[in-house]
Every structure is written in structure tokens, then in C-alpha cells.
């Protein structure tokens, strides 16, 4: 049984990472950049269909949002999405305050929260059943933070973020399923293709 389903505080549906990632990718019509965190968030981003504007991390747990902040500062006209797990975010929680201070309006952060280190054997995180990601984000100064109640609400929040005037954080409760695909782990190609996709480079 998923421990998350017993959390009393929120009335939010337990969803699925791949389904939500596919719903997000289907909405991207303007070459929006997407940064996938380590492990399952980038596996599901890969499985949702590779796009030239996708970046997949190999390691450096917790850096999806900082990397996305860098892209957002470099390209203020482009919308940037970042996908991060709750365990990863716990490892780099200070970045929420940094992002709130810099306040890039073109950044949407999505936290996939199952309360688990799914990829290492589904052990619970230290925050399972006690910490509230949205309350943490709001406390860090990201006032535009919300739990998605269900898939429809998630899509609504994503749409809303496309025209937001402040950084957006969307937290979703997800099940304990592993990622669907497996990213090709070729960091130089990943980086070069991402830069091509962002219009920074021309192909050799």
C-alpha cells in the first residue's frame, strides 16, 4: 500500500508520473525547454517522446531546478519546465529560496511526490507523511505553488503557468510505479542536442 494515500492533510488524487509527463509534453507547442531530474523523472520524459528541447540529467541529484533556473535566466523569452522528484528536491531545498528571489516568470517547476526513493528500492524519504512540498515552497517565497487535485487540475495549472508573472510550482502526488523508458545515457549528445534545440548552436 502506498503510504502517501494515508496522508490526512490533502484531498489530492494519486496520479502517475508517465501519464502526467505525457500530458505535459502534449501541451508544448512553442519549443518549451524541459529539464528532467535524475532517474524516473527523466526516464518518463524520454518515454513521453524525445524533443530537441529536452535535457536529461545523469546524476547530481537535486539540480533539475537550478539547471532550469540557469536556462530561464539565459532565455527569458522561452518557457522552461523542470521535473523533479520529492526525494531529489529534499536534497537541494535551498534552491526554492534562490528561485523565489530571482523570480523568473518563465519557469514552471513540477514536483512528482510519492514519498519514496522509488529507484533505489522504494524506501520512504525522511519527509514521507510529514512534510508538505507546497507549504515548503510557499514558505520559501514561491507563492504561486499548488497541489494538483487530479489530472484535469494538473493540466489547468500547467496552462495557467504559461502566462504566469511569477515562477510556478506544481506538486503532484504520484504512485510508486517505476519510470517507463530508459534514457540513452550519452551526456555529450544530450547536451549538444539540447543546445541545438535551444537555438544556441548550429549542427556541425
Amino acid at each position, binding site marked *: 500500500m502506498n503510504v502517501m494515500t494515508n496522508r490526512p492533510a490533502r484531498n489530492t488524487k494519486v496520479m502517475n508520473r508517465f501519464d502526467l509527463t505525457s500530458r505535459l509534453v502534449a501541451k508544448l507547442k512553442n519549443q518549451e525547454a524541459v529539464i528532467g531530474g535524475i532517474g524516473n523523472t527523466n526516464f518518463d520524459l524520454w518515454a513521453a517522446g524525445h524533443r530537441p528541447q529536452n535535457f536529461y540529467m*545523469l546524476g547530481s541529484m*537535486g*539540480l533539475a531546478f537550478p*539547471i532550469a533556473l540557469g536556462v530561464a535566466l*539565459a532565455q527569458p523569452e522561452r518557457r522552461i519546465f523542470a521535473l523533479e522528484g520529492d526525494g531529489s528536491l529534499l536534497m537541494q531545498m535551498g534552491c526554492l529560496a534562490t528561485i523565489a528571489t530571482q523570480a523568473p516568470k518563465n519557469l514552471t517547476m513540477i514536483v512528482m511526490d510519492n514519498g519514496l526513493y522509488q529507484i533505489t528500492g522504494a524506501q520512504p524519504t525522511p519527509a514521507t507523511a510529514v512534510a508538505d512540498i507546497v507549504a515548503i515552497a510557499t514558505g520559501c517565497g514561491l507563492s504561486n505553488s499548488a497541489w494538483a487535485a487530479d489530472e484535469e487540475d494538473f493540466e489547468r495549472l500547467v496552462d495557467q503557468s504559461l502566462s504566469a508573472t511569477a515562477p510556478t510550482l506544481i506538486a503532484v502526488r504520484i504512485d510508486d510505479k517505476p519510470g517507463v523508458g530508459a534514457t540513452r545515457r550519452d551526456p555529450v549528445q544530450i547536451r549538444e542536442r539540447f543546445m541545438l534545440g*535551444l537555438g544556441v548552436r548550429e549542427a556541425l
Partner: protein
Amino acid sequence: MAAAEGQISPQAFQDQAPRERSWHEIVLQTLKRNEIRLVPYVPDRVLTTLIKNIHADPFFTTFPTAREEEAVGIVSGAWMGGLRGAVLMQTSGFATLANVLASLAIPYQIPLIMFVSERGTLGEFNYGQSLVCRTMRPVLDSLAMEHHTATRLDEFEFIVDRSIKQAITTQAPVALILSPLLTGGKVFEK
């Protein structure tokens, strides 16, 4: 120049000679010359004036981060998006970076430029700092990373300018270690 006139006292000569640029002025000007606009940092006492001057210059986007690896993530993303950056930190901050260097900067071939204010040597008063300092160069060497320890003002601009250019053209990280011999370091005060 002024001395050749033979009219002024040594003291007057000192007053009239062009003022030598300080190490932190060289850093700021060399960053600018190389179009490095984004400077996230975790502060250090030695870096105080540099950080203040970078904040005061509208050319730069500069801000503190909660951790050094966060700053590395930010400049990595920015570089992929077409904006150049550099990270400022002290020795103990560098000691937190082995994972991000080995899993992001090096394998993705990102020209990560780091300025590390060196604590832990040449008059260190904190035993913890002196121990953590000893991990820095072995980590850099174990990853075969380019690094230089700047000790002299007359070489400093050459080292900084060339190292930045090399990092960018070879897409490889570089650590520029600012020795107390260059900066004066931080000394024990009662």
C-alpha cells in the same frame, strides 16, 4: 615616467604613479572582457569586495545560492542556454562539489569556471579549514581537471584570462584557486 622628471620625492612618486589594479579588479574586468555575465556565489570574507563590486555593476547578474552545487547547476543551465557564467566560493564549498563535477560539468562538457578563495593554508586558524583544504587538489587531480593556484598579481590577469578562454574553447571546467599570497587571505582576529 614621473621619476624621470627628477623633481619629486619618492613619496610623491608613489602618490602619482598609476595605481596597480587589485586582484579583485582584475577578476571583474576579465569576466567582463570574456562576456561572463552570470555570477552566482556562496560568499567568503576574502571575496567581499569582489562580490560588492559585481553587485554594483549592471553588466552582471549576481546572487547568492544556498549551496555551491546549486550555483554549478545554475551556470551549467545558463551556458546551455547561451549565457556565460562563473561561480565564486571558498575551499570548504569546493569540497561539496565532487559529485556535480563528476556527473554534470565534466561528462556533459560544460565550461564551468570556478574561483575558489583558498582557506586552510598560510596562516589558517581553523583546523577544520586546514583539513578540508587538503582534499581540494587531490579531487581536482583525480578528475584530471584544469586548475591553477594564483599567487602573484603580475601573473594573475594572464592566468584568469587564458583559463577562461581555454575552458570555453575546450568545453572543460577550470578551478582558479586564489591563494592568500594573492589576496592576503583571512587571518585570526581577536
